[in-house]
């Protein structure tokens, strides 16, 4: 089992980090994001247009944490889509590889890609804006794992859909996260949304992560009920998404889609 998981991680690592342009693409966007939001926040502070001084910390924390979710989803989906693009699915699925081994490998490589992608952004934020992400303390680790888990859930659903229904669903790999963005309340509180949107937002775990983050940074308080809700929602969504992904593999076997699937 570990040998096969290791084999896949080495493969995904070779693809993701094997060439400079690919490596650059992993950490370029988070770094640009952090610089953009950092300078913009500084501008607001310098012009006294913001009512409280912790705004820089809140916005940059939100940028980094949102990117954890985005990178987590993209890292997982892109690694799996690489198998489809390289017409490798047939060879992969005739090995003794089990579905859960593929699931574990995708999760691990997504985690590696996210960590590598975000590290330069965090250093840049520290250098240019004296921003300390670790102000969130232990909760940073909690938020990191929960946000990346949301990314995995979305990644498994998108990968399953592309496998089963074809390339038209590939667009979702980039777009789906931006459908979730307004409901996640990354940069504004939940009660600033219209009532109906609030109800929809409360079904998804990101809103509780970002609400908790703001509560810690502004009031220095933790709402444990929200943290429990994050864990329960995330566990449920992740489990369901993995089951969906495995179901899509099984459905593709019935439809004969694992042969000759490719570009």
């Amino acid at each position, binding site marked *: 089992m570990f040998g096969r998981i290791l084999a896949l991680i080495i*493969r995904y690592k070779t693809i993701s980090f094997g*060439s400079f342009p690919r490596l650059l693409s992993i950490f370029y966007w988070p770094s640009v994001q952090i610089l953009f939001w950092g300078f913009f926040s500084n501008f607001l502070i310098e012009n006294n247009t913001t009512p409280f001084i912790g705004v820089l910390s809140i916005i940059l924390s939100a940028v980094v944490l949102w990117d954890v979710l985005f990178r987590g989803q993209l890292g997982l989906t892109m690694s799996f889509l690489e198998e489809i693009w*390289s017409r*490798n699915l047939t*060879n992969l699925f005739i*090995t003794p590889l089990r579905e859960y081994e593929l699931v574990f490998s995708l999760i691990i490589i997504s985690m590696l890609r996210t960590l590598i992608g975000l590290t330069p952004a965090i250093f840049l934020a520290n250098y240019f804006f004296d921003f300390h992400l670790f102000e969130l303390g232990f909760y940073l680790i909690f938020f990191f794992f929960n946000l990346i888990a949301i990314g995995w859930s979305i990644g498994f659903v998108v990968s399953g859909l592309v496998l089963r229904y074809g390339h038209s669903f590939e667009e979702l790999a980039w777009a789906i996260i931006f459908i979730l963005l307004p409901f996640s309340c990354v940069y504004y509180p939940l009660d600033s949304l219209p009532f109906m949107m609030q109800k929809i937002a409360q079904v998804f775990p990101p809103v509780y992560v970002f609400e908790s983050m703001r509560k810690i940074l502004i009031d220095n308080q933790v709402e444990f009920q929200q943290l429990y809700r994050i864990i329960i929602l995330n566990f449920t969504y992740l489990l369901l998404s993995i089951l969906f992904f495995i179901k899509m593999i099984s459905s593709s076997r*019935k439809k004969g889609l694992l042969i000759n699937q490719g570009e």
Partner: protein
Amino acid sequence: MNSFVVKVSNLVKTFETKKIIKNISFNVNENSVTGVLGKNGAGKTTLLGMLMGLISPSSGNIEILGKNLFFKKNEILKDINFQSPYIDLPKKMTVEQNLFFYSRLYGIKKFKDIIYDLVKKLKMSDLMKKNYGSLSAGQKTKVNLCKALINNPKLLLLDEPTASLDPETSIFIREFLLDYQKKNKSSILITSHNLEEIQSICSKIILLKLGRIASNGNLNELLKTNNYSSLKDFFLGQG
């Protein structure tokens, strides 16, 4: 008494409403080379896909190496392998990285020795550091074949292994496969449109026609019984 590496009974595959494989049964002998023939759309690829567990049958039973494919798929997959010119390996990895990757997936210990031995026999040492995507069709076929042999399969499934190859490479691959089969006493199931190739390497053939088995048996006996001098005539007459 012959023992069988493949036992297929009452196999049916329906896609939506279209029946592709229509209740077929056959066996593949141990230590043999069997050709699966048929025109386009006869069901050859679907049949191979089902034998590898890539396509779920609608009904029927497949036993490979004495084990039921439905219940013991992962055990069976350790001992079989597949090569097709229509299925690629990851293009952005070198040949060496690809072969190491697949060796790990098959759980092969000391795989470097096995790989370099195969690479030497297949005369492809110069390809090892090249990206798979940069290889020619003939080179890709050799690499794919090497991948298909890394787990020393007891059953090797080949889908038109010499398609689009020049005559010299085709002859080399054909002779290599026959030599490999004899030395390892493995079984090969091969589909090909190259009837001369099938006639030269297969002892038994299964002729598929619109999802059914039109003929199945020893090649020489089938030709003799039906008064055909070559497989080409037989195929045109029966297929």
